[in-house]
């Protein structure tokens, strides 16, 4: 969603300059494109580090620092990237093919790199001229990789860092990142505030209006929305629970969008010992019989879940991709049916109540959803035991296979292949431990095909398999709710929950 149509509304005068204070839901981690792992750091980084590619309003990759989408050679072993001219890093050094090469090499090699995987198949990087970068790819598919343009557009691999700064700071680049971007890093203020300032080196500098943006992390949703209302913050993401309160003032402008990802239940099917260990089926009811999982699914009333648990700020759905994605399909959820669920339990010969251990994190939203699922499924004969552990512990438990069912928010991207790590039998992030030659084959094909229509079909087939197995039970897509000072125009909210301020400006 966007805050307002770009055209000026009558009677409003745009103001040049100005400052914004933006609320973040978590502390950004290191502001280093290769090392950053969190969403919040990416939100900040997108303003100071432009990428070769970015997502367009249709959520498909489009060039940003490149002039075109990557050109693939016929044999699929060579990618050519053409770069913009006349671009400068924020430290004034020129942006050229050599800089791109340096950045790519750093992405690939720096210790702890979060971006290295995008370059898995890259064997050689050459720079035939200042405006051209050529990547030679390895032939064999050692590891499935996502498509290059999506990956670079959605993740930080496409961000190009100033070689001079890299030279200077090495792996401490994140302490003072310098890239090409409308804003430049202005420093930390305390533990939780990051300032970025308008850059005069930016090629489109005259299109940038806001002078200075302060990001402030406020983890507590209620506090964040209170700050928003009191005017301490100009823009922030608002938790579902707080939306009504914030809107009751009627003064803030609303910016909504459906997320790419989904909220769902991951069932531990074959991950008894941990994702990096051989698959083994845990000794749990839910893993033992698909009918139990179906019964569980049927017991959940998604519309009640959304209206009570999410204050209606979500869309009940049984498909991983939301409407934002080209890969969306209207796949209606089974209507809640307690009788059928009970019948399934009887059919499966399960001893009721069926014991289910549901792991959630400790935030109030997860707790709320967990308790709702608990009471809904209780009617069908499940005895859900909630285990709420803070995020890191939950993640660790998921990796170790120490769970029955996990309530989790999956942040997918525009690239449909983002479901691959969750379902591909060889992926070591496949926490449900889903296996199957059929789905493996589909996912492999989806990855290597560039044909859009074919991909849509492949992923739909793969998804149907997941829906049937119910190793993941999809619940809903949340609607990101951003509230902003009405004087700010042109804020862009992307489906991944990131806000873009490059086109923003203040009005009187």
């Amino acid at each position, binding site marked *: 969603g966007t805050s307002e149509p770009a055209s000026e509304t009558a009677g409003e005068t745009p103001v040049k300059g100005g400052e914004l204070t933006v609320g973040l839901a978590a502390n950004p981690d290191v502001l280093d494109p290769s090392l950053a792992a969190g969403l919040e750091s990416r939100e900040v980084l997108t303003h100071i580090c432009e990428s070769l590619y970015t997502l367009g309003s249709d959520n498909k990759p489009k060039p940003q620092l490149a002039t075109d989408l990557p050109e693939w050679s016929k044999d699929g072993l060579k990618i050519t990237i053409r770069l913009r001219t006349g671009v400068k890093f924020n430290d004034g050094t020129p942006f050229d093919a050599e800089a791109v090469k340096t950045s790519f090499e750093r992405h690939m090699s720096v210790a702890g790199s979060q971006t290295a995987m995008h370059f898995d198949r890259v064997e050689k990087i050459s720079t035939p001229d200042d405006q051209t970068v050529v990547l030679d790819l390895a032939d064999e598919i050692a590891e499935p990789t996502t498509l290059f343009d999506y990956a670079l557009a959605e993740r930080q691999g496409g961000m190009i860092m100033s070689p001079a700064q890299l030279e200077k700071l090495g792996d401490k680049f994140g302490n003072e990142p310098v890239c090409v971007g409308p804003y430049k890093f202005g420093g930390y203020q305390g533990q939780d505030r990051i300032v970025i300032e308008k850059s005069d080196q930016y090629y489109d500098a005259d299109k940038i209006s806001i002078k200075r943006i302060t990001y402030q992390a406020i983890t*507590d*949703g*209620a506090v964040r929305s209170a700050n928003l209302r009191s005017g301490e913050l100009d823009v922030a993401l608002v*938790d579902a*629970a*707080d939306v*009504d*309160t914030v809107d009751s003032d009627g003064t803030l402008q609303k910016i909504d969008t459906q997320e790419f990802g989904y909220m769902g239940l991951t069932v531990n099917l074959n991950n008894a010992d941990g994702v990096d260990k051989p698959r083994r089926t845990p000794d749990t009811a839910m893993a033992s019989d698909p009918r139990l999982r179906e019964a569980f699914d049927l017991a959940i009333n998604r519309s*009640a879940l959304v*209206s*009570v*648990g999410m204050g209606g700020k979500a869309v009940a759905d049984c498909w991983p991709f939301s409407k934002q994605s080209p890969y969306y399909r209207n796949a209606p959820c089974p209507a809640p049916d307690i009788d059928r669920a009970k019948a399934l339990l009887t059919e499966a010969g399960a001893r009721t109540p069926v014991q289910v251990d549901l792991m959630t994190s*400790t*935030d*109030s939203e997860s*707790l*709320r959803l*967990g*308790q*709702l699922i*608990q*009471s809904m499924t209780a009617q069908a004969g499940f005895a859900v*035991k*909630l*285990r*709420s*552990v*803070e995020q890191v*512990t939950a993640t660790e438990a998921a990796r170790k296979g120490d769970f029955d069912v996990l309530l989790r928010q999956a942040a997918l991207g525009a690239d449909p292949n983002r479901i691959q790590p969750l379902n591909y039998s060889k992926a070591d992030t496949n926490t449900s431990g889903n296996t199957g030659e059929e789905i493996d084959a589909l996912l492999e094909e989806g990855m290597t095909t560039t044909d859009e229509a074919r991909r849509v079909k492949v992923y739909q087939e793969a998804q149907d398999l997941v829906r049937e197995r119910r190793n993941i039970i999809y619940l809903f897509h949340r609607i990101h709710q951003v509230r902003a000072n009405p004087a700010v125009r042109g804020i862009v909210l992307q489906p991944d929950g990131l806000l873009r301020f490059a086109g923003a400006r203040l009005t009187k």
Partner: protein
Amino acid sequence: MTGIAGVPAAVPAERSGRRSIVFRFLRRPRALVACVIVLLFLITAVFAPIISPFDPSVNDFNAVRQAPSATHLLGTDELGRDLLSRIIHGSRASLTAGVCAALIALVVAVPLGLVAGYYRGFADTVIGRLVDTVLAFPFLILAIGLAAVLGPSLLNATIAIGVSHVPQLIRIVRGEVLAAREEEYVAGAIASGSRDRRILFRHILPNTTNTLLVQATVVVPTAILGEAALSFLGLGVQPPTPSWGVLLSTAQSHLEQAPWLSIFPGLAVMLAALSFNMVADGLRDVLDPKGTR
């Protein structure tokens, strides 16, 4: 009963001493009221299922976040559960945490304090250093750390709170023992040929019970507050089991739309802590008449 001649017959005399304490205690209206409130809380906790008007974990999706009304005396929460019933059931977790944490703290601290205070020397040095160290950690950080290591549950939160009170209790017990050790009656016992064990448990320990009793009653309310704080941070009782801390923590998101969700459980915590504190005050007054408050 120690099986010595004379002791059984001593009971009436002892009881008369106790009775006068009870009598003096009951003559303090504030302490009496507090005692009654504590008792009411305990009764509420024990008979929660009978007393509470609703099942605390059954949702009524048509009555979400309703203000207090005739049906739901204290209103309903964000999942349509009756707040009164949840507070009533929550008293179980909160009081258990409070009382058990106090017990845990006593069980750990008393032997250590006895040993440190009575034998002094090396044991005292080691225990003293540990106490200093642990005391230097802020209580909540310690409790958070422990709760995170042990995993969140009522039991673990209780252990964490209990343990975090240990150093302070050790100090108190040790101080008492040091003082008692210098009492002439201990010299009298040594001169009578008594063994260390008897001296510790028959002579010194009973003379520290007043302080311990008062301290225990002081730990209870802080432990109730501690449980609330840990649950507030998501390290306590697991839902849907309510505890006052859990209620408060979830209520925080609805502070404005549904202030009753914070106000009533908050009042419950405060009232419970208040009455335990008042009982402690009363005990202190009665058990230590020269103590000034």
